[in-house]
């Protein structure tokens, strides 16, 4: 079964090629069948392969499949080869399952769009790239997938390309992530030069053997990789692209900008765990990035009017949790939160997509309202998603994963109180904005007419994801509930287990810590009820108060990052480009030409046609030479 590994990425690739080649000749139905079908088959292949992997793990708890040698230069021989272990299994399953559901959803969501075929072409390419990313057995191939998903992200954000604003958002996403990619590729150069290979497992072993813990080279390498992760996963300081990325269709936001691509950074760090284990400073940087991001984005999410932007900031914030977990050596906690987040965030976006579609493209949550009765299925599933996001205790997967993440920030050797407090605060904010959306969108009176209701291809994925958003949490129950943690056991085969060795480890692992979170969550829900439930008008006064208003505006604009970058990076480059557009060097060239022309003008004016001036010139020359002769 494991030998079918290559089929998992190959099927969407085949779908992509078919869609490109056949293009118009396929009708909408054909495109839908190929687009969704290829991913569905890929999902089946993934289920088969991963199933067999889980049931009967191969020797060494990993398997590698090399298709061909990519290139062979100077001892550098990266392969087109795939590597499957527990970490990649988690990602592959999420990608293919969520991917298929979203494809299915899209066949209905996009049914009237003129770029229907193009949409599935891009989407298939994305799934292929994402699978390559997580299956790659070497960093170069990983980078291929990495850039591939970046491309698809750009293409899909800019999918409705008639509106220049959408295209701008796509470009922004691509360019900002590429800044991070520059760091990543520099890291690749460093690793290649120092360790002589990019094949991940030998590379990690070599790093462990040759690099002393906390040596500069290890820290630099880890930081460069973090740079890549920060870009792709929309972390501070490169988070600014993701809110704008919501210009794309909702399924895209769900698949790419919530469930899968944006977690590539998490995957990358998890994949290169041994490197980060060697580099304590880099881990600290990771943790700081995570905590700062989750707070900044959380507060921004609190004040958004645009449903999808709010979710986008929430995504940034939740990935911040994952990164934070990785930073405090809670590797498995990060992966767990990725898994749960993928389901509930995809669910939220798909729900949001239905809502927006139903309201004829309305994004502003304050123009929605009262949808609980008009779109009951969406209401129920969306609320499940929001509850999971808010970590509603016991019944949602978000509770278990976030609880684990927060515990690790206190419980591991890398953890500390500040991180813990920060993450608790983040959890509180998360609860606030999650339920703010529920209250504002689904309750109160309707501001906009519902013009369309979802059919089964849209509702079915919602229900499936809602179910996943509940049950996947039970894969890893905390110790104080019961000793059921198959996911942890599974991840232990590939990642270092969480070591509860921190100063407050005992408390962190206990029910007491969980109780704090439970308290926070309920408190948050209650406060959000007070603030935003539509029939409580008093809150508007609060929102309009002179203290809150500027703060809200600041948060709404994403803490001024865009403002700053515009002035520090974008404008200077634009200014220089505009100033130099006729090529500065050409001024030199023109200058030389001008000198020649001036020479011509002068000399030519000397050709007066008068005989005596000719004689004079000759005489002058002779006299000059004779003078030299005599005086020398």
């Amino acid at each position, binding site marked *: 079964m494991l030998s079918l590994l290559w089929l998992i990425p190959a099927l969407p690739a085949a779908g992509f090629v078919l869609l490109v080649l056949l293009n118009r000749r396929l009708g909408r139905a054909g495109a839908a069948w190929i687009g969704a079908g290829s991913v569905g088959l890929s999902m089946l292949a993934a289920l088969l392969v991963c199933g067999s992997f889980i049931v009967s793990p191969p020797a060494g708890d990993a398997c590698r499949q090399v298709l061909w040698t990519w290139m062979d230069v100077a001892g550098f021989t990266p392969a087109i080869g795939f590597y499957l272990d527990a970490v990649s299994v988690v990602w592959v399953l999420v990608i293919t399952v969520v991917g298929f559901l979203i494809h299915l959803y899209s066949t209905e969501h996009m049914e009237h769009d003129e770029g229907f075929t193009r949409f599935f072409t891009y989407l298939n390419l994305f799934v292929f790239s994402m699978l390559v990313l997580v299956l790659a057995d070497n960093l170069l191939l990983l980078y291929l997938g990495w850039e591939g998903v970046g491309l698809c992200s750009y293409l899909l954000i800019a999918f409705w390309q008639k509106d220049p604003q959408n295209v701008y958002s796509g470009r922004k996403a691509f360019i900002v992530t590429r800044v991070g990619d520059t760091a990543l590729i520099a890291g690749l150069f460093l690793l290649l030069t120092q360790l002589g290979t990019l094949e991940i497992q030998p590379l990690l072993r070599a790093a462990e053997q040759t690099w002393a813990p906390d040596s500069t080279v290890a820290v630099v390498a880890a930081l460069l990789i973090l740079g890549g992760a920060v870009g792709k996963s929309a972390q501070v300081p490169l988070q600014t692209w993701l809110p704008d990325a919501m210009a794309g269709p909702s399924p895209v936001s769900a698949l790419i900008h919530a469930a899968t691509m944006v977690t590539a950074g998490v995957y990358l760090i998890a994949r290169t765990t041994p490197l980060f284990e060697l580099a304590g400073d880099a881990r600290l940087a990771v943790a700081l990035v995570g905590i700062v991001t989750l707070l900044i984005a959380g507060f921004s999410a609190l004040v958004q009017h645009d449903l999808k932007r709010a979710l986008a900031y929430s995504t940034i914030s939740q990935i911040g949790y994952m990164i934070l977990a990785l930073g405090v050596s809670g590797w498995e906690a990060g992966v767990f939160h990725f898994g749960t987040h993928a389901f509930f965030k995809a669910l939220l976006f798909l729900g949001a997509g239905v809502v927006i579609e139903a309201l004829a493209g309305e994004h502003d949550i304050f123009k929605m309202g009262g949808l609980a009765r008009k779109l009951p299925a969406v209401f129920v599933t969306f609320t499940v998603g929001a509850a999971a996001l808010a970590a509603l205790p016991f019944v949602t997967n978000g509770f278990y994963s976030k609880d684990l993440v927060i515990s690790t920030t206190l419980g591991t050797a890398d953890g500390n109180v500040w991180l813990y407090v920060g993450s608790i605060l983040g959890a509180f904010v998360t609860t606030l904005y999650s339920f703010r959306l529920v209250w504002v969108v689904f309750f109160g009176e309707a501001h906009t007419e519902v013009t369309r209701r979802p059919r089964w291809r849209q509702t079915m994925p919602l229900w499936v994801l809602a179910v996943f958003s509940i049950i996947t949490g039970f894969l890893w129950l905390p110790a104080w509930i019961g000793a059921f943690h198959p996911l942890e056991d599974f991840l232990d085969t590939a990642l270092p287990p969480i070591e509860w060795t921190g100063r407050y480890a005992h408390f962190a692992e206990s029910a007491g810590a969980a109780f704090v979170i439970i308290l926070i969550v309920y408190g948050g829900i209650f406060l959000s009820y007070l603030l935003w439930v539509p029939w409580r008008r008093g809150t508007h006064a609060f929102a309009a108060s002179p203290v809150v208003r500027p703060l809200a505006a600041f948060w709404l604009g994403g803490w001024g990052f865009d403002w700053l970058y515009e002035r520090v990076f974008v404008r200077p480059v634009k200014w220089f480009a505009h100033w130099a557009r006729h090529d500065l060097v050409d001024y030199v060239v023109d200058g030389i030409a001008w000198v*020649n*022309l001036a*020479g*011509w003008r002068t*000399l*030519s004016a*000397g*050709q007066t*046609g008068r*005989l005596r*001036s*000719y*004689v004079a*010139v*000759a005489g*002058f*020359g*002779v006299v000059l*030479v*004779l003078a*030299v*002769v*005599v005086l*020398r």
Partner: protein
Amino acid sequence: MTVTWGDLLTVSPLIALTLAAVAVMLAAAFFRSHALALGITLGGLAAAFGTLFVAASRAERDVTPLVRMDAYALLFIGLLAAAAAVVVLFSWGYLDRFRVHPEEYYVLLLTATLGGATLAASTHFASFFLGLEILSVSLYGLIVYAVYRDEAVEAAVKYLVLAGATSAFLVFGMALVYAQTGTMTAAGVSDLVAGLGDDVVATIGLVMLLVGIGFKLAVVPFHMWTPDVYEGAPAPVTAYVATVSKGAVFALLLRFLLPVSSDQGSTVFLALTAVAIASMVAGNLLALRQDNVKRILAYSSIAHLGYLLVAFLATGERAGLAVGFYLIAYFATTLAAFGVVTVLSPPDRDADRIDDYRGLGSRRPVPAAVFTVVLLSLAGMPLTMGFIGKFVIVTAGSGAALWAMVIVLVATSTIGLYYYTRLIVAMYVRRRDEAGPAATPLPAAPGGTLGVSVLGVLTLFLLVFGVYPQPLLRLVEHAVSVLPWP
């Protein structure tokens, strides 16, 4: 110092030219026949060319102290005669359109060639001076031959006065040299140059001598006449002035002043360096935006003589090879260039405005193609002799480590590209900004089949030896090897 029959046989090329000149003169006295004059002229030139082989078969020798018929002299006499023959062929169609009798033209042409040939073989001040003056005086007549053209008269006056004045410099210089050395032979001058030291009078003499040579070569600062004379003279005569008179003098320069290059610190050397550099710069710059084709060619010839001086100043046989080959290339190219002008010229004026050449590529494809090859050769582009010529000159200059001159050569020859390609563009490219009434197209020149076929031969020559120059290089190598290289 008796002259034997053998000596006469050796100088038979010169005699042939003399006899031909007399014959044409006499013939013209009896029959006013253009064809006859042309025939005799060509016959004379052919005889001169043919007798070269007779002379070549004999051991090289001095015929009196005045001339020396060695391989070097023979090469140049052959070159001059061939060039003269080409000019004659171009003149046929051109002179037919003249409003004056054409016969005496050929007399002057033959005597001028005789003067040039004498210069090439000269080893003595007397023959030097005689040859130069025969050449000059004949040229006065040739330049002003179309007496009814105001430009021709103006050109002739300028040439006459300047030539006369520089002749005076020349003779005065000769006198000074003679006063210091007591000898007037080339060998004596060479010795003088080699051991010049700081003999002020002799150096002054040499410099004045060089004035005369410099004028004929039209190098800076004696170049001012060139554009006016080129423009004013009839096109075939211009071709002649540009080639034969310069080539002959350059041949002489090599024979008399070879050792100049052996002392790179001497005043004469420095003066010549300055002249070379100034010629390259001024020649190329002056042509830059010039609109008269003949003037462009005039200015470009100044630059080319500058290049030649670089080769001259580089010592050694490699320099001789460069000079010889470049001169041949320059002859062929220049003759073809003015040949094109000749062929295109209507009866009343010469086709020398750049506007005359606009769209030539479609109107007269063959002359246009020839002119293109010519211009590329002047620019030193591959597949033409000009390329090999430039290459041998750079080789010579680099071999002698004359870096300043080589760099100037490189830089200025690039300026050359600008105006050569400007002409090419004019012939082939339709300008979109030509909205106004286009320049009146040149009236079709009558006849010209002969001229065009000669052009074809010249082009072939340029191309064949541009790709496979080995035979010519051998020939020149052999010729220059007889010079007394230091």
